[in-house]
């Protein structure tokens, strides 16, 4: 498809908007390629995106989305797996730190926070894809979205403390089992999603901590080390992902 950068941006945003609205992936690709075909022809005749969509991108995207059914089955398949991934992640972290105890509040609170975060993220992507937003504002909104689950998780922990809800404790045997189950989950998700992310992320987050735990350094030194090394690993990982994406873009 040979279209101008404005058209490509519009098509890319449309795809994100429809994905975040939970539409069928096949139908999304269909409409995006159909509009791409239209834009290509229109540009040859000297028209541009604004001539085509008429209204604001937001209105136009909303109109298209309104005519497309919600992919409930896809969502139902995707959601539990995402949830399992998130819980394996929490489980592994807690097992490594030896804090395997959960109360009823945790068991209800964590999924609730998770669902809310997912919903907020989808809303954020829709908003971002359908509006022209200055970089600074994007940053602020993103900060709020990122801070919400963290503060909600802290809220759950405090509520838990305050209510003193009875918690189920797990012994050392359960710790090994928890780590093993989490590992299996990560591998399963990696195969299911055909991507390494679900394996790389836990490595980046947990491996330095585990390794540091094996050393003979003082507790304070250990803490300092993990506080500096973990963000460093995350940074390196994100940078390399970015670089790979850029390379892919160039070659395509």
């Amino acid at each position, binding site marked *: 498809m040979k279209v101008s950068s404005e058209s490509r941006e519009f098509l890319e945003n449309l795809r994100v908007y429809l994905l975040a609205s939970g539409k069928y992936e096949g139908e999304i690709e269909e*409409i995006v*390629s159909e509009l791409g*075909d239209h834009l290509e022809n229109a540009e040859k005749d000297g028209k541009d995106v604004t*001539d*085509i*969509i*008429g209204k604001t991108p937001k209105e136009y995207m909303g109109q298209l989305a309104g*005519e497309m*059914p919600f992919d409930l089955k896809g969502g139902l398949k995707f959601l539990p797996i995402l949830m399992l991934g998130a819980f394996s992640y929490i489980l592994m972290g807690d097992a490594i730190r030896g804090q395997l105890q959960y109360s009823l509040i945790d068991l209800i609170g964590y999924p609730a926070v998770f669902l809310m975060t997912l919903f907020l993220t989808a809303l954020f992507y829709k908003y971002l894809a359908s509006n022209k937003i200055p970089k600074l504002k994007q940053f602020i909104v993103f900060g709020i979205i990122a801070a919400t689950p963290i503060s909600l998780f802290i809220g759950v922990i405090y509520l838990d403390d305050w209510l003193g809800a009875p918690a189920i404790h797990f012994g050392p045997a359960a710790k090994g089992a928890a780590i093993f189950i989490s590992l299996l989950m990560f591998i399963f998700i990696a195969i299911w999603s055909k991507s390494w992310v679900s394996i790389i992320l836990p490595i980046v987050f947990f491996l330095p901590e585990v390794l540091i735990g094996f050393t003979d350094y003082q507790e304070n030194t250990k803490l300092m080390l993990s506080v500096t090394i973990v963000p460093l690993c995350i940074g390196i990982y994100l940078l390399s992902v970015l670089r790979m994406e850029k390379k892919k873009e160039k070659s395509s």
Partner: protein
Amino acid sequence: MSSSQMLKGILEGCLLSIISKGETYGYEMTEKLNAYGFTMVSEGSIYPLLLRMKKEGLVTAVQKELPSGGPKRKYYSLTEKGEEELENFKDRWKAISTSVNHLLKGDDLR
């Protein structure tokens, strides 16, 4: 009913008529619309309509490879239900346009 909704209904009828002339794709439809003077609607507004018409079973769509070997293009054709809907639209339109024309011309009723 807002004026844009009325326009949508009319545009849908016109699309049915264009597609009834033979298999066609989005850009060709807008070219025909423009040729008939439909400049009050933006070209993109046919796509939400086409999505709905397909959902309602008035049209079917197939992806076809272009002879030039480029990306696939989506071609629409009318279903039987679409043909019926087109006839309905023609009747409705005839009735509406006749009365509106009479009214605007101020024909004497008696």
